[in-house]
């Protein structure tokens, strides 16, 4: 049994942290809210250039030829600094374009700026010029009219999109669409893991320093236990993200359960961590200039992406109950 990252993945995480942390940050996320003209970081061009975006694109198409787990490792680092665009978009595109080496190459070299359209607000629509969507049972690609709206979390690049002319990428490929969505849920959960873990770290650091009534507030049980509960939820999430990524790579029959579990736990753990972060900071925690609300904004938006947490837990129960007693 080796249910842990290996040393290459740890190196990958370090490299990703280095690259992503060099430009993205909660401060950049706040800047996007303050100024609609500001650019998301690291941004689509830099993210593609770094090679991290195309980790799961085959080497034959100019990608990294890596695993979903590799991508999840990077996604966690992206989540820590609220980076954008989301690796969820690239992960799903890589699955949807499977076999279409021309478009995969365009995805990997940045000439195809794609987002995935599920029928509601589109993640990373801002800056995308092409949209993959499911038409009947066919996966199609086309242009789209993008209508941006006032964002809660501006790093998600969400917008309403009306799809224009399309052409078929893969016919009769509803299964592949589903798989791509499950992989997307795992990568989304990996980003949530990073965001939640970072929120807990920030909370811990503050409560060690901040004093009230002659001692650090982290010594008070109310504060300490809230952070512990958030930490425990994050570590459970980490296990589920790893399992989900492993299942995407090696055990497709486990993927539906693992992806739903990771998606649901991510929504709950991230929301809990972000709310705890604000609460342990007291007054400063709900000011605009503090980073706490940027983690919180991510939490409030992510819980609705790729289905909400309620749907995820329902799906977990359906799968578990369908399998009961077999």
């Amino acid at each position: 049994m080796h249910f842990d990252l290996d040393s290459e993945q740890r190196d990958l995480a370090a490299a990703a942290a280095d690259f992503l942390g060099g430009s993205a940050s909660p401060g950049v996320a706040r800047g996007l809210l303050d100024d609609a003209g500001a650019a998301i970081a690291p941004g689509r061009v830099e993210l593609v250039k770094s090679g991290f975006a195309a980790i799961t694109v085959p080497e034959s198409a100019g990608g990294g030829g890596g695993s979903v787990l590799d991508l999840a490792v990077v996604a966690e680092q992206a989540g820590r600094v609220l980076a954008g665009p989301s690796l969820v978009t690239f992960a799903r595109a890589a699955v949807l374009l499977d076999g279409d080496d021309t478009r995969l190459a365009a995805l990997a070299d940045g000439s195809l700026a794609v987002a995935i359209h599920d029928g509601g607000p589109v993640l990373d629509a801002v800056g995308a010029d092409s949209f993959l969507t499911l038409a009947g049972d066919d996966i199609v690609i086309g242009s789209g009219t993008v209508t941006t709206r006032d964002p809660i979390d501006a790093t998600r690049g969400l917008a309403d999109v009306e799809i224009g002319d399309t052409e078929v990428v893969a016919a009769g490929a509803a299964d592949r669409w589903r798989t791509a969505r499950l992989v997307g849920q795992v990568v989304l959960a990996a980003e949530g893991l990073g965001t939640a873990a970072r929120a807990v770290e920030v909370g811990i650091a503050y409560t060690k320093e901040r004093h009230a009534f002659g001692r650090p507030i982290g010594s008070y049980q109310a504060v300490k236990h809230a952070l512990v509960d958030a930490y425990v939820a994050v570590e459970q999430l980490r296990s589920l993200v790893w399992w989900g990524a492993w299942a995407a790579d090696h055990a497709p029959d486990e993927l539906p359960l693992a992806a739903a579990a990771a998606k649901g736990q991510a929504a709950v753990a991230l929301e809990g961590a972000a709310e705890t972060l604000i609460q342990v900071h007291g007054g400063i925690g709900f000011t605009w200039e503090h980073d706490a609300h940027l983690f919180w904004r991510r939490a409030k938006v992510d819980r609705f992406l790729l289905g909400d947490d309620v749907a995820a837990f329902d799906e977990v129960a359906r799968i578990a109950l369908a399998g009961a007693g077999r």
Partner: protein
Amino acid sequence: MDFDDTPDEAAWRAEVRGFLTEHKAELGDRGTRLDFDPEVAKQRQALLYDAGYVGVTWPVEAGGRGGTPMQQAIIDQEMARAGVPGLINLIGIGMCGPTVIYHGSEDQKSRYLKRLLRGDDIWCQLFSEPASGSDLAALRTKAVQDEQGDWHISGQKVWTTLAHLSDYGILLTRTDPDVAKHRGLTMFVVDMKAPGVTVRPLKQMSGGADFNEVFFDDVVIKDSERLGDVGDGWRTALTTLMSERLTLGGGGTEIGVSIERMAEHVADRIVGLPDERQALVRQDFGRAYVASLGMRYTGYRLLTAISQGNLPGPEASAGKLAGTTAARDLADLAVRLLGDDGVYAAQSDGTDTWQTLQAVLPGMAIAGGTNEVLRNIIGERVLGLPAEPRADKDKTYRELAAAGA
């Protein structure tokens, strides 16, 4: 048991209602708190004061009418019922004024109190600091007396509601760092237009700016503006904080969101959902609605106590605890029911009621005492549970500050 007014209360209510009905056009409509125009709000308060409906519980000699808390509660209810906006100078009336009444000189009382009630001067309360939130007595703002007897103030306050509109403030300072932290404090009335006072609005995560930071850079205050004795500021501040609780009046029924409005929203949105989701929504909404009913009827118990001339104790804070959790859950549900619009800061029709509520609520569990501090207070003062041992009681402020506290 009944929910009826006594004959006296009914008569008072009729009088108040009559006045509000007659003057509704002048008094205007209750909108959001940030909407109101300060000048209009001051005129409104003057109109109400001149009619005898502001500061009814204050002593006559302080500009009030020596009335009962129940009379005040009825005014609050009737203003809410009539949709008349609240008073702009609420903090002045609830906190600053009472402190001046108890601790001010005759000269201060005559100069300040009536103008405060009329809304001629707006007041704010300058207690909290960046490094002293729950632990108020850890404040750092320094007041040093010069040879003429004037005080020189340097430091920073924060979370100051209305500071940007205020004419005066009550200011808690540290005048002696070499005694225990509660003992070296002194309170003053400060002229908010004095040289060296800088007010900066503090933007919240919701985008609103309900609070300010206030900086004091060698601001000079005459010793005659002192409230209470030198070094006795903690006891003076307790008067202020005690008065704050009494300002609550008929409160306890609000959880930061109108439950009726929320019910309309849910009723509106639920019909579009599959039956199974509707059941989930009803379960969440039902629980939060029960919490709001619990608060409403607990508020009536408080009002009953007030009607009988009793003053609410710390148990009045229990409502806030129950309320912030319920309000958070309601806001969550409200945004969830927006469907696709829930990931944006406003609905496609431009309204943003529920998203804004969602962003305001985390602050509500903190402002006015974090939920953790409220639990300590209720646990210790209502349930009689023992306090935690205090590490900071036997040390001077200077020693504590050196240790990072």
